[in-house]
Structures are given as C-alpha cells and as structure tokens.
C-alpha cells in the first residue's frame, strides 16, 4: 500500500523535481503516492505547511528558516530542510525604457548581463535625483526569498542603497511581466519563465542572472515540519530518494522535451510549451536540478541566507543555529547502505 504524501508547490520552472517524481513513477517506486497541491502564493504555501494541511513543500530556501525563527508573519514552527530542490533559475529584468536609459548612461557597464549593470543603474538614479524625479520601483517575489536578496546584492554592487535609493516591493511571479508592462514597476527579480516572458514580449530586458549574483546558492528546498519528519522518518528518506532520482531525470538532456511538456500542462504551469522549453534552454537562467550537488542542502548556504536576512533588516544581529533547520545528515541517511 502506497503512503500518501501531500506536497505543495508554486508553479515555476524549478518545481520540476516533485512533478517528475509524481508523474514519472519515481515516487511510486518508493511506495509513495505523491499528491501535488498547487499554490498561487508563497503565503498560502507557508500557511498550509505550517498548519499541517500539506506534509511537504517546494519552498523558497529562506522561508523555512524564517518560519522556524517566527519571522514569517505566523507563530514559529520548528522546520526541517532535508533536501535542496535545485539551483539557479532567477534573473533580474528591467523595463525596456529603463534599459535604454542605463545603456545611454554607461554603455560599457551594459555590455553584458551581470553585477556590473547596476553601475549604470546608479548613474540613472543620480540623474533622476538631480532632476527631482520619483524613485524607481523594483519587485521581488517574497520578503524571505533569494530573489529579494539577489536584487539587494545587485543594487549594492552598483553602490545603490536598497532601502533609500529605490522602492522595493513584492509581486507574485505571474503578475510580474504585466506589472512591468503597465509601468507599475521598473524592474524585478523572479524565477523562470517570468524573465523570458517579458523579454519575449519586448517589455523587458535581462540585466543579471542568479548565476552572476549568487551562483552557488540553493533556490528552492524541500520544507517539512520537524514534527512530521520525526513521525515519518523512513518515509522522508524514501521521499528524498524519489525526489533525487527525479532531479537526475530532469537534468538529463534527452528528457528536456518531456520535461517541458510536463511543466506546461494546465494542472502545473499552464503556459505554452515553447515558453517553457525556451526557458529551460536559456543559458544563465536555466535551473540546475541535480548536477553539482544541487540537491544537498549545504549549511554554509543557510548561513549566507541568514546573513542576507540580517543585512535586509529582517533579523536581529546575531547568527542563530542554522543546523537546527538544514539537515544534510538526513539527505545522507537516505543514501546510506542501511536504508537503500
């Protein structure tokens, strides 16, 4: 008898691993009936995970740490991250209008995407200030997200103070491109396919990728309540094995077409398959699922995330024990001989 595990996800390209595990038989092979639940916002995913309406979640890497520390707007919940669900995938896009101004201000800085493009932005900001124009507005997807910290890192690389020299806001990924097109914001940091979307429509241009800004950072992780982990230890190990095999499958070049089709389905992302396929092939913003240890949660990344939280003013200036939450030991146990 297969055991049901309810796993929540937010429709983005990097939710591929649980989708593949459920659809390509990797979960079933471990005796798991993986019931996927799509969520429209990180807030709802957080609530359902915290209050036990789902067992597990494809979740922003910083969010379980924030939930554990009681920072995420709800009472603290003891959380565990026994696996990472890939790396990369994010990019920063600015409106074509702002891109033109940045290019005019500093053509050399704009030669290629990367941290250097923020130097051109600084020049635009200084010109705006001299002319008495309002601040530019940028959005990320959630306060406790790598996107937020990557946007801050990029701004800081250009000598821009994120808290005084720009407006920073939050917009859900599916709303990003339309908000940019409508002129509500001047730029954003988001996961694919929402950068490609604006670029393909001609409303935005890519100025930096996660690869440029924070290359070794995890992007999404597997989030569990510690209580659930304690009650379902062996099941968790099975789940990690199923998800890891799915990650390996998702990375393989020969599966890319099938992966794009799976992600494009109405019950998953519900977008044209060409957009997904293009985003999966896009150098710089295509996510890594298994390669280079993309599934092993590394504690040094958790510590970097907490430093970013502090820098963003989300956490009092002290480093708590990240090791309570990030559990590479569980990931290792899933592949030790006694459990294989």
């Amino acid at each position, binding site marked *: 008898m297969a055991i049901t595990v309810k796993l929540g996800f937010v429709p983005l390209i990097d939710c591929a691993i649980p989708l593949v595990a459920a659809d390509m038989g990797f979960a079933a092979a471990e005796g798991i009936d993986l019931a996927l639940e799509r969520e429209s916002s990180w807030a709802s995913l957080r609530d359902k995970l915290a209050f036990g309406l789902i067992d597990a979640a494809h979740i922003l890497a910083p969010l379980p740490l924030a939930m554990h520390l009681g920072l995420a707007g709800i009472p603290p919940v003891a959380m565990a991250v026994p696996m990472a669900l890939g790396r990369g995938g994010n990019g920063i896009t600015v409106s074509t209008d702002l891109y033109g101004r940045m290019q005019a201000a500093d053509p050399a800085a704009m030669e290629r995407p990367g941290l250097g493009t923020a130097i051109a932005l600084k020049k635009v900001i200084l010109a705006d200030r001299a002319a008495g124009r309002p601040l530019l507005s940028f959005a990320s997807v959630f306060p406790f997200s790598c996107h937020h910290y990557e946007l801050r890192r990029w701004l800081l690389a250009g000598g821009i103070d994120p808290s005084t020299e720009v407006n920073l806001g939050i917009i859900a990924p599916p709303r990003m491109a339309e908000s940019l097109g409508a002129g*509500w914001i001047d730029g954003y940091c988001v996961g694919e396919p929402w950068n490609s979307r604006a670029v393909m429509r001609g409303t935005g241009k890519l100025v930096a990728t996660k690869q440029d800004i924070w290359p070794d950072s995890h992007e999404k992780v597997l989030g569990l309540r510690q209580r659930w982990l304690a009650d379902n230890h062996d099941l968790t190990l099975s789940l990690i094995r199923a998800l890891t095999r799915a990650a390996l499958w998702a990375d393989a070049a020969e599966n890319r077409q099938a992966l794009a089709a799976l992600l494009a389905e109405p019950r998953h992302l519900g977008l044209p398959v060409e957009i997904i396929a293009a985003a999966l092939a896009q150098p710089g913003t295509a996510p890594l699922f298994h390669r280079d240890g993309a599934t092993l949660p590394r504690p040094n990344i958790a510590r970097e995330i907490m430093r970013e939280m502090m820098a963003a003013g989300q956490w009092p200036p002290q480093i708590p024990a990240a090791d309570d939450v990030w559990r590479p030991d569980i990931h290792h146990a899933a592949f030790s001989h006694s459990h294989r």
Partner: protein
Amino acid sequence: MGNADLSILIIDGSPDRAAVVERGLVEAGWVRVSTIGPSVNLLARIQALAPDVIIIDLENPDRDTLEQMFQVSRQVQRPIAMFVDQSDSQMIHAAIEAGVSAYVVDGLRQDRIKPIVETAVSRFNAFDRLRRERDEAQAKLQDRKLVERAKGLLMKNRGLSEEDAYTLMRRTAMKQNRKLADIAQSVITAFEMEL
C-alpha cells in the same frame, strides 16, 4: 456594539463569492464592507480604502503583495498583520481549510476581529457547498440525459420496450459494478461505432 465603525475589505478572485461574504457581513451588522477583484496596483487601492480588516481568498496571488504591508510598513501609514489567534489554532486551521485568510490593522483587539473572520469562514464554506451542490446537480442532469439517449437507442435498434431497455442497463451496471450512466455511455458509443 460598534460594529459599524470597522471598515472591512474583501479581496476575492471570485466576484460571486465576494458578494456572498459581503452580504453575510452586512447582515451580521458590519456595514462598512467593500470588495475588490484582482488588481495590479493593489497596494495603492488598499491605501486609498484604508480598511481595518482585509479578507482575502487563499488562491489569490496578491496575498504575497499584501504581506509586504507588514514587512515594509514604512510605505503605509497603517501597518497590517496577518490575523493569527495564538490561543485558537483550531480556528486558523478552519480558515485555511475553507480557503480564506484575514489581515488586520496591527493593534486591533482580537475579540473584535474574531467574529468577522468566523463569518467569512462560514460564508466561504457555504459558498463552497453551494458550488459543489450545483456541480453535482449538473452532473446528475447530464447522467439522466445519457440514460435517456441510450434507452432510446436500445428501443429503436433492438425493439425493446422502455422498461426492458432500462432493466437491461440497470442489470448490466450491477453485474459489472459500474454506474448506470457509464453503461449508458458505453451503449451510446457502441451504437455510434456501428453507424
């Protein structure tokens, strides 16, 4: 008892459900209720309305935008926080299950907010029940149409009486442990293939 002074904003992707919740709140004595749908300039609209309580559906992607109101509170004059009654986790569980969440102006007393959230939860559940019942009624009507059509085909092509046609399908359904409508569909498909 001073219900009238609290201003409540309902943000819902479903206008029908928003109307049901609004009516429920107004009937219970909260008169300052307004509703908005999905919107790209959500924060500006909320600031203009300055609600004390916000009711939002869980499927709404705007929840993440709304939450920055307690992260970046310097942008708004009235800081907003998610309503979580620490003493009653049963209630928050019921709210999430019903698909609704609430945000309140920080500092409002919990006993003033709780009945609002309870009303919203019960209205969400009632709406869900109504929708389910409507879907079921439609499915039943669809089933009945299938059975009628299959019956007609059997009468015309096999010379059965109406009663015999019905009994035949009924007996087959019981024997195969399938729904009568499924058998009817099979009958229709079989005749369609012959044609």
